[in-house]
C-alpha cells in the first residue's frame, strides 16, 4: 500500500513559500516602495551601464540599454508576474485540466445531451453567426428548446432523443487549431492590432498556453479511467460528475506538478522572444522577459541576465518545490 507519510523537509519549503510571498508583496506594494528612480524614466546619461555603487545617482543593479534603472524594473516586473504571468500559468493549467480531463474521461460518446440542449446550442450559433432570419429564428429555436425540456419527462419519444456531444473530437479540433499555428506567428499577427489591456493579454496568454496541460491531462486520464478504483466508484453507483471530479480528475492532474513551472517559464520566455523580435507591450510596462530580451541589444550586459535571470530562476524553483510538496503530501 502507500508508504508511511514523510514530513517534507521544511527548510526548503519555507524558503520557497517565503520567496513567493516576497514576490507577491513587492509586486503589490511596488508603487509605494522607496525606490531611487521612477519606472520607465530613462536616465540618458547612463545608458547600459553596469552596477556602479560609487557614482551618484546610484544604480544598484545598473541600467538597461534604454537607460532605465534595472532595480526599479525588476521590482515592477514582480507586479507583472503577480498580475499577469502567474495567473496566466495557473489559469491555463486549470482550463487545461478541466478540458483535457473531460475529453479524456467522456471521450466521444460519454456525455449525452438532451434535445433541448441541442436546440439551445443551435439557437446560439444562429444568433452569433447572424444567419438569415437573425434574431427571430434564434428566438423560435429557444422556444422549441424550452418546449423540448418541458416535454422530455412527459413524452418518452422526446426523452429518448439525446445524442452524445463529441467532446474528444472537439477537444482535438481546438487543440490542433491552436497548436498548428505557431505561437510566434499568432502573436506577431495579433501584435499588429490595437494594443492589448492586461485583461485581454491574460486571456490571450491563457488561450495560447492551455493546450499543453490539457493534452497531458487527457493522456493521463485515458489511463486513469481504466484503473480499478474508478471502476469501483462506478460500481458504487456514484453519479458520473462525482466520479470525474472527486476520483478521476485529481489523479489525472499529476502531470501538472511539473507543468505549471514549465508554463510560467514558457510564458516569460515568450515575452522575451517577443522583445527580441521587437513586438509587444509598450516600453513602460516592465517584465523580466523584456529585460532578458534586451540582452540582444547589449550582449555584454551580464547585470541584466543576473538580475532578471535570478528572479525568474528563484520563482521557478519555488514553484517546483511547492508543487512537489503539494502532490506528495
Amino acid at each position, binding site marked *: 500500500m502507500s508508504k508511511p507519510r514523510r514530513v517534507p523537509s521544511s527548510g526548503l519549503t519555507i524558503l520557497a513559500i517565503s520567496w513567493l510571498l516576497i514576490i507577491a508583496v513587492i509586486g503589490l506594494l511596488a508603487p509605494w516602495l522607496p525606490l531611487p528612480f521612477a519606472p520607465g524614466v*530613462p536616465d540618458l*546619461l547612463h545608458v547600459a551601464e553596469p552596477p556602479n555603487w560609487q557614482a551618484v545617482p546610484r544604480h544598484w543593479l545598473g541600467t538597461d540599454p534604454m*537607460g532605465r534603472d534595472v532595480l526599479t524594473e525588476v521590482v515592477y516586473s514582480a507586479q507583472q508576474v503577480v498580475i499577469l504571468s502567474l495567473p496566466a500559468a495557473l489559469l491555463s493549467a486549470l482550463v487545461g485540466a478541466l478540458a483535457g480531463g473531460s475529453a479524456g474521461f467522456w471521450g466521444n460518446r460519454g456525455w449525452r445531451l438532451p434535445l433541448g440542449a441541442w436546440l439551445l446550442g443551435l439557437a446560439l450559433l444562429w444568433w452569433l453567426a447572424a444567419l438569415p432570419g437573425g434574431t427571430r429564428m434564434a428566438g423560435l429555436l429557444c422556444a422549441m428548446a424550452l418546449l423540448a425540456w418541458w416535454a422530455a419527462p412527459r413524452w418518452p419519444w422526446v426523452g429518448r432523443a439525446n445524442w452524445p456531444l463529441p467532446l474528444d473530437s472537439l477537444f482535438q479540433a481546438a487543440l490542433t487549431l491552436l497548436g498548428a499555428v505557431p505561437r510566434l506567428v499568432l502573436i506577431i499577427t495579433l501584435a499588429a492590432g490595437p494594443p492589448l489591456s492586461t485583461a485581454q493579454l491574460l486571456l490571450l496568454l491563457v488561450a495560447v498556453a492551455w493546450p499543453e496541460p490539457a493534452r497531458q491531462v487527457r493522456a493521463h486520464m485515458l489511463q486513469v479511467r481504466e484503473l480499478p478504483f474508478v471502476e469501483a466508484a462506478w460500481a458504487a453507483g456514484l453519479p458520473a460528475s462525482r466520479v470525474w471530479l472527486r476520483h478521476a480528475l485529481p489523479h489525472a492532474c499529476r502531470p501538472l506538478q511539473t507543468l505549471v513551472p514549465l508554463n510560467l517559464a514558457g510564458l516569460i520566455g515568450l515575452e522575451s522572444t517577443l522583445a527580441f523580435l*521587437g*513586438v509587444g507591450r509598450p*516600453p*513602460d510596462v516592465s517584465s523580466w522577459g523584456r529585460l532578458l530580451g534586451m540582452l540582444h541589444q547589449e550582449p555584454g550586459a551580464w547585470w541584466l541576465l543576473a538580475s532578471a535571470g535570478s528572479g525568474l530562476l528563484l520563482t521557478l524553483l519555488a514553484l517546483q518545490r511547492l508543487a512537489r510538496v503539494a502532490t506528495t503530501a
Partner: protein
Amino acid sequence: MKLFWVSLLLAISSSACSLSTKQQQHTGIRIRWVRDPENLSPLVQPNQNALDALSLLHCSLLQVNFLTGTYSPALADSLPTVHLVGDSLTELRYELRRAAAWDNGRPVLASDVAFSLKLYQCPGLPNEKVRAQLSFIRDIRLDATNPRRFTLVCQGQAPEYSYEAGDFPILPEAALDAAHTLRSCSLAKLAKLSVLSPRDSALRMLVYRYQHADPSHHPERLPGCGAYRLETWEIDHFLTFKRKPHWWADTLRPTPFMLQARPRKIQFLIIPDEVTATLALRRHELDVLPQLSARGFQRLQADDAQRHELAFYSTPSYELVIAGFNTRQPILRDSLTRQALARLFDPAQLQQATQLGQGLRTVGLVHPRDRQYYNDSLQLLSYAPKQALALLQQAGWQQLPTGWVRAAAQRPAQQLKLMVRYRADDASFATIALQFKAAAGKLGIPVELVPTESSSLTNALREGNFDIYVRKLSGNPFAFNFTTLLHSRTIPESNFPKFSTRTTDQLMDAIAATGNTAHKRQLLRRFQLLIQQQAPLVPLFFLPYRLTTTQGIQHLYPSGFKPGYYPAAATWAPTASTKAAR
C-alpha cells in the same frame, strides 16, 4: 572510448582552425545584407538591397557618383541638355556612349531606351511601383539621324527631372521583343492604359513573354549591360556576382568613376542578426559590415583596440529622425501648444544615448552640410521645460489638479493627453518616446505610448489615429521638395501631420520649381523659419551611417548616400593580401 573523444575533438579543432583562417582569394569581397532582395527584376525594385543588386547588373543613363556626390553620366555620354517647353513640359536630350554594348556585342541604342520605358509602363506586368515613379516621363522621341540620340519629354518643370529621368536600368529590346512589335505603340498611349483597359495582342504577347522568362529569379534572361552577372542566388542565404570578363566599359580611357568594376567577385551574405555578423567579421568570414547600430559599432571598436584588424567609418547620412504632430487634433491645432511640446524633447541627450554622439543635429529639414541652404541663424531645439510651461500657459492651458485643461468656446473643455505612435521594432524610437513621456510626466501631462507594427503604423498615420509620431525620414541629397511631407495636396497619403497653410504651400511649390540658387536659398531659409515657428514636425537629428571593414579594403567610398558604400570600386591593399596569405 576516451581515445575516440580526444581524436574527435582534435579533428574538429583542426578543421575549425583551417576554416577560420581561410580567406577569400583577394579578388572578391563579402558584404553583409540584413534581408534578401526578394526580386531582381528591374520592374519591381522592392527594397534597397534589390536596388544595389540592380546597380551591379544594369547600367542607367545617369548614376550617383559617390566621389563627387552628384549624378554623373554612365550610359549617357554627358549630362542631358534641358529645354523647358511652355510652362508644363521639360525636354531632356541625351546621347548614348558609342562604346556601350550588350553582352552579345550589339550596341546599346535609343530603341533600347524606348523599349525599357515602355516595359516600365506596360499594364499587366508587376511594375506598379516603378510605373508610378516614372509616370512623369510622358514620351520619348528618337532621333532619325542618330540611333544613339533621343529626347525624353517630362510632365512638369521641376529642376530635379534632369537627373531623375535618367535613373532607371536600360534593358535590351532583343531579349523580350526581338520582332520590334512595340515600336509601333507610343509611350504616351501606353501610359494612358490601365490594367482593365483592353490591350492589343502585341502587349499581351509581351506580358506572356515576360512571365515566361521570369526575370525576377533569372535576371540573365533580361540581361543588363552592367559589369557583373549573377552567378548564384540561394534565397535568404547569399548571392554571388561575378565580373564579366569582357565588359564594354573596359575600353574607355580614362575610366569614368561610375564605370569602374574592380572586384572579380562580390558576395552578399544574408545575416539577419547583428551580433552574428560582428562575430563573423572578426573571424574573417565577412569583409564589409554596413549599417551597424551605435552600440555594435562601439563594441567592435573596443574589441579591436589591440589587434587593429578592422577599419571604422562613420559618415552623416540624410536619414532624419523626426517627431510629428497631428495638427488636425483639437488639442494640437494651434502652433503654441506644438512649440511647447517640441521643447519637451531632448535631442542632445537622445543623440548621445542612442547614437553615442554621432550624427548631426539640425534646425529644420535641410541637412547641416548643405551650408548654402541651411539656416544657421535659427536656434537648435533643446530641452526647455520652463519655456514649455510658459508656452502652454500662453496657449490658454491651465494646470488643474485633474490635469491640463483649456476652455473652448461652445464645446467641452479640452484635456491635454497625448498618444505617441512609433515603429515597434526600433529601440531608439522607444527611447525617444520614453524620454518624452518622462519629460511630459514632470509637467503633469499623461502620455500613452503605442508601439505599432510598421504597416499598421502607416495605416494609423493616414487615418489620423495618433497625436504624436516618431519616425525616420529618408532625405534627398539632390533636391529640395517637401511637398510629399507637408503640402496640403498630399494629405493624407504622405502628409501625416495633415499640415496645410497657404504660405507654406506656396513656398514649397516655389522651392520645387525654382532653379535660381540665390532665390532658392532665400526661399529655403524662410521655409525653415516657418516650419520651426509652426512646428508640425520636430526634427531631432540626422543619423550616421556606420561601416566596418577588414583592414586592407580600400576605395569603398563610405558616404551618406544609400547604401553607404560603393562596392564596385573596392580593392584590396597589397600589404593586406600578403599578411593574410600567411
